């Protein structure tokens, strides 16, 4: 078989494997159905193929083939749109909504994963061709290609991991108190709960935590309402929530202490386990759209 065909085939395979390795039901609970698997695997394989043919095309002096990569980029932006649209449409069916910032973050991740499949395929095809040219033995070339692919899959998916709340804040349990009808956590007045029955449920079944930002960057990031909605969604998704559409007062609430920048989260979980809640909060991803770094500017450092 022609070395180029083998290179492209192997590159495509490794690129598709890269996409497969990132296709898992994670704590975001998404995607979790066969249809989504098929869609993303197919697109990932196409991405890998486009990436794999890039170097052989250049070697054959077929520069027009390069334009196909831009076609691919358009295609993957479409992936982002599809994900955003799907998640936005099902948003009204969620008991605790994800929020637009979280949806945007998830959609971007899906787009980026296709690029990773593409880059993995390009580099492993390149590795194959390079090794083939240098050593001129098929097994060595296959091995080189596989190594490059493995490094890409491992390295790029690691680089994609991003920050978690644990990286920018400490989280500690807090007591729930009532001042008249007002729900108070760690001195912060969160909301007015009118019904005595609802207050009793909060007293006996709710859990509360204080999320204390480590620095002004974290404070600014946690102030973002999208980031806070993501915290509420994650906590409710992982611990369950005692709430239905006709009990809006039991919606998890995440409020900011405007004096300290601390964030208080209260929810009535299905499973009352404080350790699980702490873990859920710490593992919540920091959203790309919410991430702020005021400390990068001099003015913010002056007031720090």
């Amino acid at each position, binding site marked *: 078989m022609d070395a180029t065909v083998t290179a492209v085939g192997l590159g495509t395979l490794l690129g598709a494997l890269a996409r497969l390795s990132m296709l898992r039901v994670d704590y975001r609970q998404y995607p979790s159905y066969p249809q989504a698997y098929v869609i993303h695997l197919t697109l990932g394989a196409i991405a890998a193929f486009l990436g794999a043919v890039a170097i052989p095309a250049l070697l054959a002096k077929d520069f027009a083939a390069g334009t196909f990569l831009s076609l691919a980029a358009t295609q993957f932006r479409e992936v982002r749109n599809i994900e955003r649209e799907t998640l936005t449409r099902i948003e009204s069916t969620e008991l605790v909504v994800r929020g637009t910032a979280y949806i945007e973050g998830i959609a971007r991740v899906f787009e980026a994963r296709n690029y990773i499949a593409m880059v993995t395929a390009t580099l492993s095809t390149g590795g194959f061709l390079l090794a083939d040219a240098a050593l001129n033995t098929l097994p060595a070339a296959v091995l080189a290609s596989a190594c490059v692919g493995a490094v890409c899959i491992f390295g790029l998916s690691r680089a994609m991991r991003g920050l978690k709340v644990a990286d920018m804040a400490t989280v500690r349990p807090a007591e729930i108190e009532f001042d008249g*009808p007002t729900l108070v956590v760690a001195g912060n007045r969160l909301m007015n*709960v*009118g019904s005595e029955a609802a207050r009793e449920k909060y007293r006996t079944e709710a859990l509360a935590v204080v999320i204390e930002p480590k620095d002004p960057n974290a404070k600014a990031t946690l102030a973002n309402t999208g980031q806070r909605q993501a915290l509420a969604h994650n906590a409710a998704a992982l611990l369950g929530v005692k709430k239905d*559409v006709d009990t*809006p007062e039991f919606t998890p609430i995440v409020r900011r202490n405007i004096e300290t920048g601390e964030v208080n989260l209260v929810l009535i979980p299905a499973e009352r386990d404080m350790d699980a809640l702490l873990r859920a909060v710490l593992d919540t991803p920091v959203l790309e759209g919410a991430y702020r770094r005021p400390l990068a500017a001099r003015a913010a450092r002056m007031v720090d």
Partner: protein
Amino acid sequence: MEVDIKREIVAVVTVAPDRVVGAVPTFLAADDAERERIASSLAVILRAAVHDLGNGAYVLVKH
């Protein structure tokens, strides 16, 4: 698309009728216990949250 009212007082349940004037449906309760019962029922029916104003009136708000 579902159209829904947001952040609006949809009903008032009170034991002090002389202190509520306005165009919001207002339910009079004989005592605190009845106010609690009416408010809880309305909350479920209207899918609204109950808030205590502290002046004898509970307001039901769509969030």
